[in-house]
């Protein structure tokens, strides 16, 4: 390869036979701007080879390099005394007491899932599991946060059922219980489904291992599956917008998962870590060998030298470029202590897997790639991993969205009288309805530690041998973020925290997945910045630092962006499993107490979407101090064993929250008799999605204590009714409106609606 001046300098590498010439078009195809390419040349001090260009393209993609989000992410609080490992590793790690540490992280697989839903989702689960067990933690739970268009489209049903099967089959096969998550349907996600998967892993504190290539002279080994031609440039693909023809043309960039190999790799990796024969381990995830090797070197301040001819491959004739950028699944890079490579191989052999020596740790800070002894890439490791250009762009709010937010909604607040029909419609809307059709395709009970299964406010996993348990939830209402990003992001965190306290857990830390459109557009960058600022203030207020996460930008099809969707994965600690609380009413005759205040708000609600096909108005107001007080008061009530149940109010408002508590898991629905004297318009009172509300129930002799604790925390609270019997109905009376529904009609609407839409759709596209 010649330099720009046409001369060959001392450092230049001879061109590799068969590699294309680097032209401006080739550079553009690699997703690098002319300026970025100039930066590559200045880092290299010469023209890069084609192989080197591929390496830079992957490492400096949005997916690996966070070039549009890095500066914003620095605004998030990341520290607390209980944080053991913050952002920058494969996963965050926190201390959860009794000598245990929890590794957890969320990751997106949006682009692959849009193109090939089953494999896209399955490999998403596979990747996040590997991020957890490479920290030395055994994966103990998975959650999934999914978003699709409306189910009346045949294409959406195809994506939805493919994604759910993919998430399920992978986790089921590896044997990790799914304990929760969320699913939303809205035309805002029509072209770009959102598929985020979160994993939790437990370990003893001392079992923590990190992904660094330490110890000059140590051996790099490729472990697990062979490297093939699948997923080449997946990281770059994930950093582009989709178009109508992405479907067919991009399918080769989607990887194929093999959960059976993953299970073997999981056991082998944990055994390797426990054996002490390795000093570092990392998943070959996005950008494959390139990112795992260069990041491990970057973290340790060392260099690596890799021989491509030694990498076990699936097919002959793969070029170094292909091997370096393949995203074949179920592969690991491990650093074996010099002289102990045989022990690594023996452990892998027991699990019927391969391990090959492919390189060594050096002291020169270079990322050097050989092909049969000939150098084909030689890049300084630190600029490659840390030198990705970062951008702070101009952010301007969209005038269109401002107009939607300012829309006058008063006509939608007029209805009074018998609102039972609207109530049942809302209860059967896929956004409110039971997600049973989904989680019944998941194994939720394997590993015999699931204390609260999907369908509740948060999933709960006990820690065997202790009294402790971990609760986890994922939350984000993209409509609220779309209408007002800062408020919407605060709401996402506030709802996550409410979900955790409802099961009795203290919110402890966050992993986030920022799913947004193309940040080069000012209105998208505005959404991203505002959402990060909102999230940062909520994290401060709730003392829940962010320990890691994922950024997925360019979620657009044919120029249309998804709703900005900063998904919050929040974890909390339950000190005594005996205090675990559930959302379902437990006893006939219990008092129902509403914590928090109803408001006149209806903006961004499911009610507006279902009854008027509208996403408009301002999102509900959120007061972080009031949320914090609410969280603390509920935790105190639960720890004092006052409550029979607790349930957060979210989509569908107070009426749907009461219905969910009444129906429970469908085994033994209980009636409800509630009367509300609020001086509010009935629709807002019943179906508005005002924040900071939790519905609790308690034996009547505990009600005074509940109200006392609420008042101590300055949380508005009042008894609004009582739990009735299984043969009674569901009744809510307001001054000017009412709901009166039999439990079986409610159960039908709530439990069967998604299954009915999937099994016998009335329309199709």
């Amino acid at each position, binding site marked *: 390869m010649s330099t720009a001046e046409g001369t060959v300098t001392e450092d230049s590498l001879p061109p590799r036979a068969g590699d294309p010439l680097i032209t401006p078009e080739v550079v553009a195809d690699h997703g690098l701007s002319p300026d970025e390419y100039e930066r590559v040349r200045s880092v290299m001090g010469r023209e890069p080879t084609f192989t080197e260009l591929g390496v830079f393209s992957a490492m400096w993609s949005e997916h690996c390099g966070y070039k549009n989000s890095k500066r914003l992410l620095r605004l998030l609080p990341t520290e607390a005394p209980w944080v053991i490992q913050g952002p920058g590793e494969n996963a965050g790690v926190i201390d959860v007491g009794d000598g245990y540490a929890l590794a957890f992280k969320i990751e997106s697989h949006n682009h692959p899932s849009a193109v090939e839903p089953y494999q896209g989702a399955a490999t998403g689960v596979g990747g996040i599991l590997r991020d957890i067990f490479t920290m030395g933690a055994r994966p103990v739970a998975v959650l999934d946060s999914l978003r699709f268009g409306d189910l009346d489209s045949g294409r959406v049903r195809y994506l939805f059922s493919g994604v759910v099967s993919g998430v399920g089959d992978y986790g089921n096969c590896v044997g990790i219980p799914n304990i929760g998550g969320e699913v939303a349907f809205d035309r805002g996600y029509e072209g770009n489904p959102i598929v985020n998967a979160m994993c939790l892993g437990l370990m003893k504190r001392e079992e923590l291992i990190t992904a660094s290539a330490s110890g000059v002279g140590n051996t790099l080994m490729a472990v697990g599956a062979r490297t093939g031609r699948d997923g080449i440039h997946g990281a770059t693909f994930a950093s582009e917008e989709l178009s109508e023809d992405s479907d067919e043309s991009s399918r080769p960039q989607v990887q194929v998962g093999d*959960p*059976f190999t993953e*299970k*073997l790799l999981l056991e082998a990796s944990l055994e390797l870590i426990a054996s002490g024969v390795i000093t570092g381990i990392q998943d070959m995830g996005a950008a494959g060998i390139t990112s795992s090797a260069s990041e491990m070197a970057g973290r340790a301040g060392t260099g690596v030298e890799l021989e491509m001819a030694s990498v076990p491959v699936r097919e002959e004739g793969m070029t170094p470029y292909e091997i370096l950028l393949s995203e074949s699944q179920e592969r690991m890079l491990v650093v074996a202590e010099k002289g102990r490579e045989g022990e690594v191989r023996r452990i892998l052999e027991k699990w019927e897997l391969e391990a090959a020596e492919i390189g060594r740790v050096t002291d020169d800070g270079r990322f050097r790639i050989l092909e049969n002894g000939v150098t084909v890439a030689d890049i300084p490791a630190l600029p490659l991993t840390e030198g990705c250009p970062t951008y702070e762009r101009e952010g301007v709010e969209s005038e269109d969205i401002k107009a939607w937010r300012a829309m006058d909604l008063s006509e939608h607040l007029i209805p009074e009288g018998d609102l039972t029909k609207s109530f049942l419609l809302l209860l059967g809307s896929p956004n409110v309805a039971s997600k049973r059709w989904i989680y019944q395709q998941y*194994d939720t*009970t*394997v590993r*015999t530690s699931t204390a609260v299964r999907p369908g509740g406010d948060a999933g709960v996993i006990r820690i065997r041998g202790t009294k402790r348990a971990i609760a986890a939830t994922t939350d984000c209402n993209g409509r609220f973020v779309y209408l007002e990003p800062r408020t919407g992001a605060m709401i996402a965190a506030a709802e996550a925290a409410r979900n955790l306290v409802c099961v009795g857990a203290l919110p402890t830390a966050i992993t986030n997945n920022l799913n947004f459109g193309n940040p080069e557009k000012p209105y998208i960058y505005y959404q991203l910045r505002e959402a990060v600022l909102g999230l940062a203030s909520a994290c401060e207020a709730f003392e829940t630092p962010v320990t890691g996460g994922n950024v997925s930008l360019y979620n657009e099809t044919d120029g249309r962006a998804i709703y900005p969707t900063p998904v919050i994965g929040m974890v909390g600690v339950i000190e005594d499993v005996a205090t675990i609380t559930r959302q379902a009413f437990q006893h006939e005759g219990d008092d129902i107490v509403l914590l928090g205040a109803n408001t006149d708000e209806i903006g961004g609600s499911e009610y507006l979407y279902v009854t008027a096909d509208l996403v408009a108005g301002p999102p509900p107001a959120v007061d972080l101090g009031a949320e914090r007080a609410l969280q603390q008061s509920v935790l105190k009530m639960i720890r004092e064993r006052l409550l029979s149940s607790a349930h957060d109010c979210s989509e569908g408002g107070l009426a749907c929250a009461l219905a969910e508590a009444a129906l429970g898991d469908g085994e033994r629905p209980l009636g409800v008799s509630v009367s509300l004297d609020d001086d509010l318009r009935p629709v807002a009172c019943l179906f508005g999605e005002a924040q900071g509300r939790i519905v609790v129930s308690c034996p009547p002799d505990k009600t005074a204590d509940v109200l006392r604790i609420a008042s101590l925390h300055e949380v508005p609270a009042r008894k609004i009714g009582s739990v009735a019997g299984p043969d009674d109905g569901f009744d809510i009376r307001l001054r000017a409106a009412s709901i009166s529904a039999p439990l079986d009609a409610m159960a039908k609407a709530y439990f069967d609606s998604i299954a009915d839409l999937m099994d016998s759709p009335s329309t199709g596209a």
Partner: protein
Amino acid sequence: MKAAVVTFPGSNGDYDLYKAAQQVGFETDFVWHRERGLDDYDLVLLPGGFSYGDYLRAGAIARMSPIMEDVVAFASKGGPVLGICNGFQTLCESGLLPGALVRNDVLRFQGMDVRIRVERTDLAFTSGYEEGQVLRIPIAHGEGNFEADKDTLERLEGEGRVVFRYVDRHGNPTDEANPNGSWHNIAGITNEAGNVLGMMPHPERATESILGSDDGLSLFSSLAASVPALST
């Protein structure tokens, strides 16, 4: 009193079964599928999971593992063998139990609590239950639809070898209570001698109330009570 949990590549219920056996007092070991010899054990447990990824057919490759010869020998000497979920599939593939487990009729993986009725209590596995008792136990499988030819089914029913049946909360074997399309709502069967039990539901996942049910515990405590007598 020793129990062996036989593990195959891809087993994932091995740990749960190990804990359940331990909970009722068995000294329990994992026995890797390439190992040989079960003579030291009083009880053999085949766990759930996806042995060999369920590639080819659930349990079809696992049955060719070296250890399966020992499982067959152990069973033929009257030793108690319990296969759950993928373990049940492996027992059918190996010929220790008749019939086959095919794709659920709903064509989806089914993970949920079901109710099963105890049809027989004179077995080492079920002596702690009442006849007709209805248990709430989780299932988690994609291929749990029990099928057999007409003669086999008639023999199974005639000889009282159906041990568990899917039922509703009132104990009736209805279609609605059948999660996978199994013939005659069959959830678990035994061999002629009554020392080999295969079942799709997971009793090991219903051994403590924090898990949602402890209805499965009696199966293990029944074994703990019966096994010493069997081995003398």
